[in-house]
């Protein structure tokens, strides 16, 4: 196990080293290794598959441009993932989105029980719900729920105030909650 792990690390070091030198074959290998996982990350931050693909390509461009700065202290996957998230955030900021004021219907809290419905929903359905969120809400929700950032950090990253970040997260959760509940009701109705 130990020897296998060391050998894997050594292979990864060689791959990183070759990518640093601009070896196209090594770059292709790295892309092949991580592109599926990173595509899932990009999908969460994007409105559509095309937009996610754009973010993925731009993110990998940055990966190859800055791979010489990778310090091997953490995992390569984590480092690449961070770059993808930053690319998505940058793309969002360049878009100069305005936060749309939405009318969010109040969902009764007693109707929602996450554990009960988890098994009923596929990853694709959840992805669709996130992608359907307004861009600003999607960003804040992703950064808070998946990346574990605090509101202060989110505000700095997105160039918004801390209060806006909090209200966007609140609204995003409310929308998702409503969507999940609707989905569950539809599923129940179809079963009956």
């Amino acid at each position, binding site marked *: 196990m130990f020897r296998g792990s060391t050998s894997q690390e050594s292979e990864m070091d060689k791959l990183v080293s070759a990518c640093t030198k601009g070896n196209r074959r090594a770059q292709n290998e790295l892309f092949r290794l991580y592109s*599926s996982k990173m595509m899932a990350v990009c999908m969460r931050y994007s409105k559509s598959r095309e937009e996610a*693909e754009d973010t993925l390509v731009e993110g990998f461009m940055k990966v190859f441009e800055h791979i010489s700065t990778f310090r091997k202290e953490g995992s390569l996957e984590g480092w690449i993932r961070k770059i993808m998230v930053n690319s998505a955030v940058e793309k969002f900021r360049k878009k*100069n989105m305005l936060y749309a004021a939405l009318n969010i219907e109040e969902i009764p809290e007693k109707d929602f029980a996450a554990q009960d419905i988890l098994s009923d929903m596929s990853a694709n359905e959840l992805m669709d719900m996130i992608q359907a969120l307004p861009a600003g809400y999607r960003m804040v929700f992703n950064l808070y729920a998946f990346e574990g950032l605090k509101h202060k950090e989110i505000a700095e990253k997105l*160039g918004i105030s801390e209060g806006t970040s909090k209200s966007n997260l609140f609204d995003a959760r409310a929308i998702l909650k409503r969507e999940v509940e609707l989905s569950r009701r539809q599923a129940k109705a179809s079963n009956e």
Partner: protein
Amino acid sequence: MKELHDDIDQLFKAGMGAGESPVPDSAWSRLENKLESRELQIYKKKVRGYRMMTASLALLLLLVGLYEFRNYGTGTLTLQPALTNDVSKDIRKEVQSAQALPGEKKNAIVNEKKKDGKSPLSSSFIASNNNITSSSVSNQTNDAVVTNQTTNAVVKEHTSAPASAAYTQIVESPLTSGAAELNGSETEREYLPLISEKDPGLLSGISYPDEQPIPREPFTPSLPPSISVPKLQRFSFSIFFAPDLSTRYLSDDNDDDKKPASATKRNSDHKEDEMAEFSYHAGIKAGYDLNKNWTVVSGVSFVSLLQGLKNSTIYATSLNHQNPHFELSTSAGTAILPNVNGTPGSQDSMNIGSHTREELRFIRIPLLIQYNLYKGRFCFYASGGPTFSYLFSECLDVEIHTASGAGEIHKITSLSGLNDFNFGVNAAMGMKYGVSNHLSLMLAPEFNYMLTPINNNTSVKSYPFAFGLGIGASWHF
């Protein structure tokens, strides 16, 4: 309430946290194209830099080489060109008029001219040597000493007055084992036979009563490469060219009230998108020596600051305008782009290619003080002082990808947010090489920095700075 929110977060995290999503095949080919384009861009940038450096060095070497070739190529005295060009005409006239007279009168006239010191021949002897600078034969010069490095002969010329005055030449040579004082007539005797050889008919009819053969061999002056005659030269005039590596220091403008609503890019975004390119400045400078060490310098120069922009995607905005449009924001200002693919919708995007360039052109007036660390044939100096720049033109060449995918270059000559006037500083460490008493070549690494931002009411404040290598020539008078 918090638990409910955590439930939602957990639901999505657990449901899709470590998932994978299929990647379309086109993604790698798109990425590969971008990588190739980027590599080509870096390569071109390097080549441009090397070319400019090589051209600068080659130019400098050429100038030095030309001078050295001219200066050290020959050291022998050539009399014929001066005689055949202009002085021989005077002599010919005099000789022809003398030939028309009886023999005794001819000699009398010749002797009289010798006494007056009007010897065009001996003057031409001095002037015909290319290695003697004009100042060394100037009639205003009281005492010029010429040392012949080949024969160790020393020629002293005393001219206390303009051309009409008499002069004496003293020739000291180890070959003749002593010194001989030659006046005008003796010099003529020395060289008139040479003239006779060149043009036998020229001097026929002239004879000297006390003619004695003068040994010709010892006196073969081959003059030294340079003669230094100290002279006060306070003014200098220079022309220079400096390729610069120009970039910008950016700081976020936190004054949100002044910014347009569309200005959301921060300095980190601009740093990511923009690349320094080789720029240049060129112009003229005038200097005045206050004393041996201090010189004040001013002049005027043309400054071109160039930077490239990377590939990017921009999105249509309708802020500040009624219809959606595309704006390209750089660290200098914002340009409104033409709607190449028709009027855009509110979420439409446009791809900007890597051949996008932004150029700012300034007229700069420096006011510098220069301290001369060492002054000799090689002069080392340090200079610094304020500069005043006027932006007279800006240009943005944008590569816009059309719907068909082809890149088109569009020239935009107006960027909003730029300031007209700027204040900055210049600092340089330089070296001058004096190729003659008047002319020197200079090489000066220098640094220019603008203390005031070039823009206003934009998302970032931009302070351009540039490292340059100035090369040029100075004329001292």
